[in-house]
């Protein structure tokens, strides 16, 4: 049963940050798709809820060829999925969103809320990190921008300081000859991933790997980059054995834990398979 709480409803960002600074034991709510679950299970029972749904300043998607993509924190998954510019320039974001829970959840859930919740099984983080995204956070004292991969600290823990909100996700402009792919492994369509892998590959003029990113989901406490495998790829040409080798490294370097849905061994195996497949897919997209 959800506890009784005091409801705070700011209309502007300034108001929101002031209220957030003022109240202890306060949780931020927007779509509520992550927060309400843990509240209903009695895992947390905050005294205050700060509802930023009406802070329209944070609800935007902007794209500029030089600056890239900027998504306000209260933008819903559904808005991202339906936005044509994203479909054209960052198709991997759309395919990821398509499989994130259900349409009902995507209509409510927001990108800022998803990232701030910091569930290692969350879908957007591995993809955004593979796309080298930054995150802008801010409090009453001002704002700062950090790499998204540095944002995640532990299970359900982020680099947000007290009084800070997620304000914006920034994705750099798409590079030429870059491809990205994401897949989660689950038993049911659109379920939480047992594990997931995102990969991005950028090719040079000779068709060799200039840059690569491998980011695993639910493979540890935070989204996990497999840098040893990324480095292996640099300068190499398309080679299925190479992808298999990278997959092997991924299954070694990941840090998944067993739970009721899968053993650690099975997760490591799957992460290796997904890494191999996503690298191949990303590479092929980069070539086309």
């Amino acid at each position, binding site marked *: 049963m959800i506890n009784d709480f005091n409801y705070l409803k700011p209309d502007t960002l300034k108001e929101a940050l002031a209220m957030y600074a003022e109240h202890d034991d306060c949780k931020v709510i927007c779509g509520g798709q992550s927060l309400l679950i843990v509240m209903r299970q009695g895992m947390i029972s905050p005294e205050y809820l700060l509802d930023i749904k009406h802070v329209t300043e944070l609800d935007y998607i902007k794209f500029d060829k030089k600056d890239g993509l900027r998504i306000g924190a209260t933008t819903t998954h559904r808005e991202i999925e339906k936005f044509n510019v994203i479909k054209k320039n960052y198709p991997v974001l759309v395919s990821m969103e398509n499989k994130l829970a259900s349409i009902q959840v995507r209509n409510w859930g927001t990108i800022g809320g998803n990232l701030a919740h910091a569930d290692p099984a969350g879908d957007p983080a591995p993809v955004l990190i593979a796309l080298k995204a930054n995150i802008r956070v801010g409090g009453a004292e001002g704002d700062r921008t950090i790499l998204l991969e540095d944002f995640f600290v532990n299970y359900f823990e982020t680099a947000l300081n007290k009084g800070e909100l997620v304000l914006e996700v920034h994705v750099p402009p798409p590079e030429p000859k870059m491809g990205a792919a994401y897949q989660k*492994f689950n*038993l*049911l369509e*659109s379920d939480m991933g047992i594990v997931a892998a995102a990969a991005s590959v950028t090719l040079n003029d000779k068709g060799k790997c200039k840059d690569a990113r491998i980011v695993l989901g639910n493979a540890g406490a935070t989204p996990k980059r497999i840098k040893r495998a990324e480095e292996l790829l640099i300068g190499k040409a398309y080679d299925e054995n190479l992808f298999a080798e990278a997959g092997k490294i991924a299954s070694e370097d990941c840090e998944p834990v067993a739970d009721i849905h*899968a053993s650690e061994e*099975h997760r490591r*195996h*799957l992460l290796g398979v997904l890494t191999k497949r996503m690298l191949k897919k990303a590479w092929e997209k980069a070539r086309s």
Partner: protein
Amino acid sequence: MDGLQIIGKRIPKRDAPQKVTGSAVYIQDLKIPGMLYGKILYSKYPHARILKLDTSKAEKLPGVRAVVTATDIPATFRIGVMKDNPPLKTGKVLSTRDEIVAIAATTPEIAEEALSLIDVEYEELPGIFDPLEAMKEGAPLIHEEMKSNVLKMPWKLVCGDVEAAKKESAFIVEDTFSTPWVTHCCLGTSGCIAQFDTNNNLTMYSNTQIPSLAQNDYIDALAAFGLKNKRVRIVQSVIGGGFGSKLDTYAYEYIAILLARKTRKPVKIIFSREEEFFATSPRQCTITKISHGCDKEGKLTFREIDMILDNGAYTSWGATTPSVMMMPISSLYKVPNIKYVAKCVYTNNTYSQAMRGYGNPQATFAIESSLDQLAEKAGIDPYELRLKNANEPGEITPQHFKITSCGMKECIDEVVKRLNWKEKKGKGGNRGVGMASLIHVGGGARVYKSDGCGTIIKMDDFGKVDVFTGSTDIGQGSETIIAQIVAEVLGISIDDVNVVNNDTDVCPWDVGAHASRTTFVAGNSALGAAKKIKAQILEVAAKLLEEDPASLDIKNGVVFSTKNNEKNTPLGKALRKLHYTAGGKMLMAEYFYDPANENFDKEFKGNLSVSYAYGAHGVEVEVDKETGQVKILNYIAAHDVGKAINPLLLEGQIYGGGLQGIGYALGEKMIYEKGRLMNGNFLDYKMPTAKDVPPVQAVIIESDEQDGPFGAKGIGEPGLVPTAPAIANAIYDAVGVRIKDLPITPEKILKALKEKEGSTK
């Protein structure tokens, strides 16, 4: 069957608009003035002695109106099939769903808070969670007074001579199969409101699927509580799914009665989703040792099964599912020699109940998987083996079932044709096909002394009809089916038929929505009542039209002479005439239908149902050998239903059943660790959703059952019976590994593939 106006038509469910718009009143929505909210404190441990119980702090909380414990009930009062379950426990708790204290308060929040103020001191006892462990000599006894953990329900069926048949068999296979706990996942959770009037008569608002039997249970309980000879009325709200879960009465219902009696106020208890997972009774897990034999030509010679069922801590109808398992074991295909022994074993797990199929899915998983093994050993295509041994009309099975209509061969043929079986079987490429058949009761099932259902029909002044039926609509659409049957017989529009099916004060008796019996039994009952009232109408109209009743008929609400169409009268006019004439009368008819089926004799033989439903499912899968993931590419579900009264609803039953079966095959499992449910929520319990529906073709075979209403047989349960073995067989065809333990998860497939690789290297 020619000239049918309403039977056989795709008529949408009558209650669909209410459900879609949210105006349907479920038990969750119902409020009664002055109503209190009840909440239950469950045991913290699966097996423990209660050393101390202190409710004083909870009692003092403002808003708390009553606290009940075991001391509020006579010490000898027990519920359940074996009367082994006190609604509130004292002394020893046997599972984590054991009810210890209940609170009634003015709000659910206060009741919840009061629960947290109850102080219970336990001495934890070692638990037994594995039926095999529980059967070992010297194992701690769950119910000490029973002297054994094995239930005194000796299930044993012997037909012919299995040992002799083994000697004569050319091929024999033997293996062990197991199935997990799975739960119904009703979207409408369990709940009730108990209310006493000033004379201590009880009204129970409930979503039960057995109103008449529940009424009986409550009357017994009231007598035990010192309220002898009281009336009990059951009013059913709209029911958000049953699937067998609401086929018994449970502790929470008796607790609501106790709280209502103590407070003199209506008390509502509604299960939260978590309670619905851990505190309702699921389908039990089974361990099945099976052996099958055939001769050189592939004719089946014997089937032998030894089964252990985890009964859990108490006994509900789950313990009687072996009686229904006997049906596929003895009568799925022609098998002359049968031996079946089953033991239900107490453990400190949750306790089991009926769930769609009533044991048939567990038994059919073992039988149909084993049959494929036998086919392989005998070198016969599994499809041919099935066809060769298929049941036929006119057959009397070893368990003494009299097979009337039987479309099993047609179902098998449809599967083979639509799957393109001969092209696809054994072709490799990680793709494979598999099939499995089913038998189920299709003409009621005499599990009680009666299998009856009553119907009352009354005509109003305008030619419209009120039908009072004993049957319960749990979402399967019986209200629509009954309206169709009555409208067809009376020659009126279905919109002119009002079905009342939710109040024991006005509805006739019925044994409940179970055993796929409602269309057949309640349908025949409605048919009988409709025919009776039609005869009365024609007699009245005959006088009015000065015609012989035999030459009259009704169409579109008009009574007319079949000899001379000009002679006619609107139905309403004839009825008004009857009401407005001195010495007039009203038209009403009742009919009680109890099918001519038989209770089993002492050897568990007898014609359980007057007709049997058949079907065959076929599936094509693709298996990802690297991840173990199974994808269903094509699914054919062919069912012999006698006659489709409403193909739209019937297909719904097949799709729904099929998907429930796919969940059972590939993902669903209640994960218990030492008696504690680890995945009691929809995030962790992997029930398929609308997005997981594969391409399914529902194929309807009409075999025209002689005893069915318009030729129909039951279809409530069959849709999920052969799903799991069909999928298991297809996976074997695709990648050569047989998973014998449901659900077939990717991890199990990978492990089996690894083992297979290891053994061939």
